[in-house]
């Protein structure tokens, strides 16, 4: 389908729609896998090792609950987020760090939900462009909801990031993590959620563009009622 759209009619909106479709179905597949792996891990417990499943979107799920102990003697669960939202590496420590782990998982889930939501809205939006009716009130609402979703996600990730780092530092202070110098800085650098400023900027941009679409919709209605 993707190749055909390139050959037949290389309109950028059609190619974009095909890519969004691919991302959408891939995300749904990842979601099913994600839930399946979590359920399997919950049933089979810590003896099970499901190590690092890398999928196209950048979602990496690695459960190494009994297999791998890192160089600091801490058993770890390791996860990553959706590449769309930043793809930053976030290790979750089990040893004395249950809250850190859950915050990391929460961060991943928030970003994944954002990806699914944005894909869902963008697919419909691009379809209206292909249909030749982009200036409709639904598109204004779609763009605004994407923008608000991005802003909310940014704020959520920012809060998680701050709490995450505080928890990480408390692990160092109480001796659970015994790190010095470069090792400390390297690990500290990995313990954060990607509350990237780009997410905030994109959110604001979507909200502003939605206002432009409201104006466009008004003009379209006037045009439609001009005989």
């Amino acid at each position, binding site marked *: 389908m993707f190749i055909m759209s390139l050959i037949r009619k290389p309109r950028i909106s059609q190619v974009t729609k095909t890519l969004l479709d691919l991302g959408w179905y891939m995300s749904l597949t990842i979601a099913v896998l994600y839930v399946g792996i979590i359920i399997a891990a919950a049933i089979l417990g810590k003896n099970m090792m499901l190590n690092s499943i890398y999928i196209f979107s950048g979602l990496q799920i690695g459960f190494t609950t009994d297999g791998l102990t890192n160089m600091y003697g801490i058993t770890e669960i390791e996860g990553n987020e959706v590449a769309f939202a930043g793809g930053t590496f976030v290790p979750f420590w089990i040893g004395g760090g249950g809250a850190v782990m859950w915050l990391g998982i929460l961060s991943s889930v928030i970003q994944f939900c954002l990806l699914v939501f944005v894909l869902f809205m963008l697919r419909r939006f691009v379809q209206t462009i292909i249909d030749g009716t982009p200036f409709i009130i639904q598109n204004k609402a779609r763009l605004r909801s994407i923008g608000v979703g991005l802003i909310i996600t940014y704020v959520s990730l920012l809060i998680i990031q701050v709490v995450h780092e505080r928890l990480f530092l408390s692990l160092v202070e109480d001796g659970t993590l015994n790190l010095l110098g470069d090792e400390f800085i390297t690990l500290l650098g990995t313990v954060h959620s990607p509350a990237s400023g780009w997410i905030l900027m994109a959110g604001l941009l979507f909200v502003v563009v939605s206002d432009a679409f409201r104006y466009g919709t008004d003009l379209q*209605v*006037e045009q439609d*009622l*001009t*005989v």
Partner: protein
Amino acid sequence: MKINVHLDRLLVDRKITLKQLAEDVGVTVANLSILKNGHAKAVRFSTLSGICKALDCQPGDLLEYVSE
């Protein structure tokens, strides 16, 4: 302020259907229906002159201003 459109009356007087008029003027029946039912927000001069030509009338015969 309100502009009344007397297209239906003129069509009856001239014994012309909306479809025939649409073909003569070169607009869609849907657009003429919008005009006939008073839902139009604007009328192009080209449409107005086409209707006047097809119905052999003046713009004043088609449109009437009513103060509320």
